């Protein structure tokens, strides 16, 4: 520590002044770890002695804290070597607790990325050597930070988040699952599988044999389920259930089977294309309803079939057996939800006029009639001119539909049309960030979905435009992107969120 009494010597030995003597090192082992509290600030300097004394005290504390050098026991330090060519730090002695969230192994060696090594140097956990000499923190900053590794700005954000306890990793674009993968839920399932394997590894049983064991178990449970399904179904046809392909999760997917609400065929289409088919001869088959179960469907009209194809009567019993024809039993909450839904969405089947239709032709006729009825009310001075209204009364069922219809400028979401954008060099995601409370279960190999992703920028730089925003949020997938803005050591975090104006006001 450069105290005022040593400063005259320091003048001579300027370059050595911050090296501690062995006795100072020894004494440093029992030094305090408390940080003095800053008091309330004053408004104006009034030149009073009290104020001067307080300022002096604050300054003394300030210099005392800053002057302190890091002193660690050799046994607590992890030794490491800076490898300039690879811009990596290789560990020479067993890693500490930090290994759970930092570093990686390759070819049997343990490495730290430069920003991790520098942070651990600052924490007094790692001593990094280069050409047989230990690097000071200053040399760490100068050697490790560059455009190829991480910049000073990025390191400042990294250090800030690390000090708060977050797990921070470099962002790897290839680790983000594509939208398609996400849609199919691919990454989650494969991750689960890997996690299972890890767990098994821990229970000291070889993975391969376990794997063989699991699949039959899964099969049997699936069969059990289908058995149950058969037993519970009241259908007499259920006995000749085809043994192949048991239906799984029939309950879940079939729930919406006959409460489908919006099966309204678009009337405009029916109008424009001349009906080639004689709809009056095509009847509505109703296979789902239990009330009117026809076991056979009449053979289809031969004129509609290509070539010499012949189709006889269609026996629907095997199909019926595959359908879940159980009476739907809704829980109270589901029923309430349905009632809520029904209030705003009319079921076609509840329309008495529609019910009276016996075939498609009659149904289309009904729709046409209704349209004509509506158009009759249209005032000529509005509708018979060049400029017509964008919509008409009764055409829209909800505010959203109405707004959709009258909107000239369509609203767009961030995810729209991103693939057509050219990638920008200026804006890049730097880090994946995981919350501190996940540290206990954190696994470096399967880090999972980050809490957020960091894009580091400076107050001197530009504000990201929509192009950059779209690009970054697309690249990040379903993880939010946070902008860490560094202003001369001071870091602020901002995020931009996609926002949809609420249009559906009931």
């Amino acid at each position, binding site marked *: 520590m450069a105290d005022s009494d040593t400063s005259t010597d320091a003048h001579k030995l300027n370059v050595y002044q911050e090296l501690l003597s062995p006795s100072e090192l020894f004494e440093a082992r029992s030094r305090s770890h408390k940080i003095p509290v800053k008091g309330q600030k004053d408004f104006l300097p009034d030149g009073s002695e009290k104020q001067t004394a307080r300022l002096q005290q604050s300054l003394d504390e300030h210099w005392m804290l800053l002057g302190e050098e890091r002193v660690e*026991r050799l046994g607590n330090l992890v030794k490491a070597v800076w490898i300039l060519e690879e811009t990596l730090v290789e560990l020479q002695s067993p890693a500490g607790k930090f290994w759970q969230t930092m570093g990686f192994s390759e070819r049997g060696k343990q490495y730290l990325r430069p920003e991790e090594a520098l942070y651990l140097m600052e924490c007094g956990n790692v001593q990094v050597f280069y050409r047989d000499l230990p690097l000071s923190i200053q040399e760490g900053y100068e050697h490790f930070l560059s455009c190829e590794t991480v910049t000073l700005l990025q390191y400042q954000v990294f250090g800030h988040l690390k000090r708060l306890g977050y797990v921070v990793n470099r962002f790897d674009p290839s680790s983000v699952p594509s939208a398609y993968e996400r849609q199919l839920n691919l990454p989650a399932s494969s991750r689960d599988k890997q996690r299972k394997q890890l767990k098994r590894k821990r229970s000291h049983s070889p993975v391969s044999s376990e794997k063989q064991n699991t699949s039959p178990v899964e099969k049997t449970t699936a069969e059990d389920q289908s058995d149950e399904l058969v037993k519970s179904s009241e259908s007499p046809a259920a006995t000749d259930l085809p043994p192949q392909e048991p239906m799984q999760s029939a309950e879940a997917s079939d729930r919406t089977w006959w409460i489908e609400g919006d099966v309204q065929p678009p009337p405009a289409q029916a109008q424009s294309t001349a009906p080639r088919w004689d709809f009056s001869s095509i009847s509505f088959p109703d296979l789902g309803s239990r009330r009117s179960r026809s076991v056979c469907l009449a053979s289809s009209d031969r004129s509609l079939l290509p070539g010499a194809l012949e189709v006889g009567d269609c026996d629907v019993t095997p199909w019926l057996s595959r359908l879940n024809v159980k009476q739907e039993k809704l829980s109270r909450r589901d029923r309430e939800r349905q009632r809520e839904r029904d209030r705003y969405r009319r079921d076609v089947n509840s329309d008495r006029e529609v019910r009276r239709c016996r075939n498609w032709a009659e149904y289309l006729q009904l729709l046409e009639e209704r349209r004509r009825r509506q158009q009759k009310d249209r005032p000529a001075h509005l509708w018979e001119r060049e400029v017509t209204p964008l919509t008409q009364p009764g055409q829209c069922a909800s505010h959203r539909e109405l707004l959709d219809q009258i909107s000239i400028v369509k609203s767009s979401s961030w995810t729209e049309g991103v693939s057509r954008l050219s990638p920008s060099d200026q804006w890049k995601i730097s880090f994946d960030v995981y919350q501190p409370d996940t540290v206990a279960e954190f696994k470096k190999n399967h880090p999972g979905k980050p809490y957020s992703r960091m894009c580091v920028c400076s107050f001197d730089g530009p504000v990201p435009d929509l192009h950059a925003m779209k690009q970054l949020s697309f690249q990040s997938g379903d993880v939010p992107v946070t902008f860490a803005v560094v202003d001369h050591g001071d870091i602020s975090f901002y995020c931009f969120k996609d926002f949809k104006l609420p249009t559906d006001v009931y």
Partner: protein
Amino acid sequence: MDGDPADMNVSQSSSSMEVKEDMDTRSDSENQPAGDALVDINFCGSTPMLWKVSDMRRCRSVGVIGALVGSLARQPRQNVRLGRPLELLQEEALLLVETGSAAASLHTQDCADEEMHSKDVRQYETGLESSYKEQCALALEDKKTVLRRIINEKENGTDDSGNAIRDRLNALDQAFCFPLSAMAVQLCTARAGFSHCPEERSFLSTDWPVPRDERLNTRFCVYRDLRNKGFFLTSAGKFGGDFLVYPGDPLRFHAHFIALCISMDEELPLCDILSIARLGSNVKKTVLLCSPQSRNETGKDESVEGDVVYSSLQWSSMV
């Protein structure tokens, strides 16, 4: 909202020189070597940094504050109080260099040749060895004093366990073992002395890593003027301005002004002025629009620094 010249505000700080003098007398001891030793500014990329506490003290004594950006040695895993290095604003570094109190250096890697280097390694290793020996002796002495104290305490009682301890004390010289892993080593913050290269100090102003464009010049003029008037300045990014202006050391005082630097001929949209004035009044600070006057405008001699025109913004209380 009134835009009135803030001369009055600024003249408040006629005590500025006193503040500076105060500092000088107070920190006499550490200012003496400042006579010839220059503050060593190191660039990390294009960012000026200070690493030595002595340099930081010298800078603060001339009112250059900077911002701490490293982990604090005493408690590294928190963000409330940070430690070295001290990051300087470009304007701060420029002022230090311009007033001749600092020398800037870009770090050059591995300036020492092989021979020098192996000598340094040897020096480091012998240093480590002797430090271990010395710490061994210190630890032994430490242990002895502890045992002696216990014996003294025990002598008052009639316990004969004192004798056992006395035996241990006598045996200590032979049996004492100070494991190497218990040795304390220093993790240097600033570059250690033996890798220091005097050649680094030759640094031309044309090598300044940030181009001195119009914007930097404007900011620098304002910074220098306010600093010369005795104010302390820090960066004001989070307040939407260029500098926060403090009447005294930021350790003890709140900032009074948010300085926004705009050159004379620059046009500023009214809504920008409104928003910063609104922000300023919300944080109980006065917004200063600061514009350096070009030299020929002031009609003064070329050598004289151009003045800066200040206007303060305030919500008027007209109803």
